[in-house]
């Protein structure tokens, strides 16, 4: 946490925020504060500046922490089907580890059915290839178009009965 605060303060963003805080404060001072008053205005300004600066930095750190901690969804919609090797391509997602079985679920009219069993065949820096291992004949043709692919959801979860079917078929 302290490291995050240090990084946020000593960065270009931190400097820009500092300048912004000074600008806002000076404009308020010009409008509302009588700097010739008996109160030591310079100390007052300094303390307000530092207080506002610290508050903004902490808000930024909190925002970054929330963004960083947000988990990826446990499913992916395929973005492409490549017919030649018979693979679905999905975006990189930490839930899909190399060589695991995955289920491709078809969603139509609010009904969800397991259409294919696949294997995470190859993991690239930003993409993952899912090889179809068993076609359960739920869909007449493999979805290819962008709208059809959005109806398919790939999850690293396969029902036990489907695994048994896979074994029976000798795949």
């Amino acid at each position, binding site marked *: 946490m302290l490291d995050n605060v240090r990084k946020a303060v000593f960065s270009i963003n931190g400097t820009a925020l500092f300048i912004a805080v000074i600008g806002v404060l000076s404009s308020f001072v010009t409008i509302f504060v009588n700097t010739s008053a008996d109160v030591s205005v310079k100390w007052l300004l300094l303390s307000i500046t530092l207080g506002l600066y610290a508050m903004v930095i902490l808000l930024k750190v909190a925002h970054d922490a929330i963004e960083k901690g947000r988990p990826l969804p446990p499913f992916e919609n395929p*973005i*492409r089907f*490549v017919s*030649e*090797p018979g693979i679905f*391509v999905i*975006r990189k997602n930490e839930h899909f580890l190399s060589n695991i079985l995955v289920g491709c679920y078809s969603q139509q009219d609010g009904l969800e059915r397991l259409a294919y069993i696949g294997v995470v*065949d*190859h993991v*690239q*820096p*930003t*993409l993952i*290839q899912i090889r179809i291992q068993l076609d359960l004949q739920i869909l007449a043709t493999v979805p290819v178009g*962008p709208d059809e*692919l959005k109806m398919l959801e790939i999850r690293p979860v396969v029902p036990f009965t489907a695994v048994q079917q896979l074994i029976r078929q*000798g795949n």
Partner: protein
Amino acid sequence: MNPRYLGKVVSVVNATTVVVNIGADQGVRSGQTFVVVGLGETITDPDTGEDLEQLELVRGRVEATHVQQKISTLTSIDVQRDPDIKEIKRSASAALYSFGPTTESVRVGLDRTKPLISPKVGDYIIED
């Protein structure tokens, strides 16, 4: 070259063996395993329109079987198994009268080295 790609295929010896342009000088050791990939189409994110990366077409997993200074010979280590064959032999009496000795035997399929899928000169190798 992208640091992900350790070397390139410079010769295709046969369906299971290729030669690559990295060897002992680049730290390749005998028995080290790699994946041979060819580069396919560029995949675009349909939501953002951003080009993600080129699809890597996996040719197969290989092992360094012979390492020279600047080149190495890599051989496929993927295995494919022939289907098991079940044989049922009936004696003549069993065939005619539904009784008599019948023997069943299962010939277990052989494990064979799986050939690489269309390897080409210019394909890349990456860490396994």
